[in-house]
């Protein structure tokens, strides 16, 4: 399989210097079985640029100690850097207060936190929680666990054939028992960008709070939690060029204050006796135990890195990749894109006639192309589109048009094998 020369391809209209950016990512020079790595699994996890790696190395080699405890210099340095990371992330999503940024282990952890604290306190028997067909399992299962425990009910917003939420149906789901809405900002499996701002406004008219799962949005667009007016917003570090094991839950101060703690332990208390324990204020109330300090600092470095390039520039460039890839795939006979929403991030889920996605994944891997195959932790969505699985190519700002061509050539190879 030959990859057409990049110079022959239309260059992106924006002055986005992708080659300079690629030089920041050491992993991108890897070869897989002698073929250059074409990494198109960014919706699962993104790669880390050198400035983030350097920041982690700097922290562990010269700044590490436990935080919020000792009076010695290193502990003070680590505490300062950790809280500085919180401040940077608060600015990154435009939170009103730094303490509205709670460090979690990731999006899943953040959603579970809200379900187990806000949910257990304020959602009861017969109450209803609105979710959507597009949700990742991590924004379904925590609510099902809560609903099962409390005798609450899950209502689901349906989608049209393009993979867009049916807003009329969403409006109809509300009733006086509706107590919560949890919706993904961007679908991980299809890339659909949901109109969350509208949905939040609708819910607020009825006094219903909204959690937004932002795992697939934060790496690709400028997110402004005050403008969205969401009550909670959860995202992960490793999908935005940061480390694994770290994420952020944003919550409005008034709500976070009303919520009981999630986990018990050190760092989340003011005082402990066997008669009574007094919990700490925000954000410590929700950060029991020693947090992933290096992770938080690395995540802030990733936010700085993305901001340095500019989320708008990233968004524009990725959209060009999406349009090019969509047009190329649509020209291939026997290949069908699942998810054709008008507003999408650079995610292409597709099926090839007569070829199971797992075989596609194994054969593309032979060409050095990393894609995700399977149900993408979104089985209700797969059922809606009547496919057991899809192949998903998900792009980041460090991908190139030449890599799109490599994908297309790879798909042709797969079709040849199964002819």
């Amino acid at each position, binding site marked *: 399989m030959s990859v057409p020369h990049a110079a022959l391809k239309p260059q992106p209209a924006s002055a986005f210097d992708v080659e300079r950016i690629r030089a920041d990512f050491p992993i991108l020079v890897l070869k*897989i*079985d002698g073929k250059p790595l074409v990494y198109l699994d960014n919706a699962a996890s993104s790669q880390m640029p050198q400035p983030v790696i350097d920041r982690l190395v700097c922290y562990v080699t010269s700044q590490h100690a436990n935080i919020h405890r000792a009076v010695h210099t290193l502990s003070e340095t680590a505490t300062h850097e950790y809280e500085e990371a919180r401040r940077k992330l608060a600015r990154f999503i435009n939170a009103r207060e730094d303490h509205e940024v709670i460090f979690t282990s990731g999006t899943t952890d953040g959603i579970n936190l809200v379900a187990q604290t806000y949910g257990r306190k304020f959602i009861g028997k017969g109450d209803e929680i609105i979710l959507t067909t597009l949700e990742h399992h991590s924004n379904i299962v925590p609510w099902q666990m809560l609903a099962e425990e409390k005798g609450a009910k899950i209502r689901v917003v349906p989608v049209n054939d393009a993979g867009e939420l049916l807003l009329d149906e969403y409006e109809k789901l509300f009733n006086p028992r509706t107590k919560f809405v949890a919706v993904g900002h961007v679908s991980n499996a299809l890339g659909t960008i949901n109109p969350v701002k509208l949905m939040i406004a609708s819910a607020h008219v009825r006094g219903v709070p909204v959690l937004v799962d932002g795992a697939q949005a934060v790496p690709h667009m400028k997110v402004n939690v005050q403008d969205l007016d969401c009550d909670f917003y959860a995202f992960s570090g490793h999908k935005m060029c940061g480390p694994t094991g770290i994420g952020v839950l944003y919550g409005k101060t008034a709500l976070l204050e009303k919520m009981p703690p999630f986990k018990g332990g050190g760092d989340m208390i003011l005082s402990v006796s066997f008669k009574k324990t007094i919990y700490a204020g925000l954000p410590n109330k929700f950060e029991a135990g020693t947090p992933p300090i290096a992770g938080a600092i690395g995540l802030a470095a990733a936010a700085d890195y993305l901001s340095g390039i500019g989320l708008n520039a990233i968004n524009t460039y990725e959209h060009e990749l999406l349009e090019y890839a969509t047009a190329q795939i649509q020209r291939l006979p026997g290949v069908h894109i699942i998810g054709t929403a008008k507003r999408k991030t650079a995610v292409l889920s597709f099926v090839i006639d007569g*070829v*199971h*996605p*797992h*075989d596609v994944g*194994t*054969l593309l*891997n*032979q060409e050095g192309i990393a894609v995700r*195959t*399977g*149900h993408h932790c979104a089985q209700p969505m*797969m059922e809606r589109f009547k496919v*057991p*699985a899809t192949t998903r190519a998900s792009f980041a700002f460090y991908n190139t048009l030449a890599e799109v061509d490599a994908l297309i050539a790879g798909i042709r190879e797969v079709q040849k*094998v*199964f002819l």
Partner: protein
Amino acid sequence: MADSKVLYQEVILDHNRKPRNYGVLVRPSHQADGYNPLCGDRLHLTLQVGGDNIDAIAFEGESCAICKASASMMTAAVKGKTREDAETLFHEFREMATGRLDPATGHHLGRLTVFAGVRDLPTRVKCAILPWHTLHAALNSVATVTTEADADPMHAPIGNA
């Protein structure tokens, strides 16, 4: 990784295109369902066992090429054999797919050795083994078999998933 190219060889592609013994037996004496949650492979296996002999066997389901070809070749291999022969093949196939049996040494696998290459593709081992687990479950009257959380296919949880 060159082995994955070897894996998708003509005999496997042929069984994927034209699976043998595809369908459902009307009044089976034994049956089981196999499910691989990782890729969504689903198999329904029906058998007619008379005395100790597998008189008839059929499968249907939705799966990747490796799984479907493996099921097709399995049915062809065990049809007319005794339960004991089938169990022997099940064990040998499992050992080969997990790299514990050298296809060049003594065994009864015959053409089933075309699946030896999966040992180099850890995520695909389950695809090839699922039909055999399902057969083993059917012969031992277990309704459903799943490869969920099955890091070591030797210890596949068998039961009602």
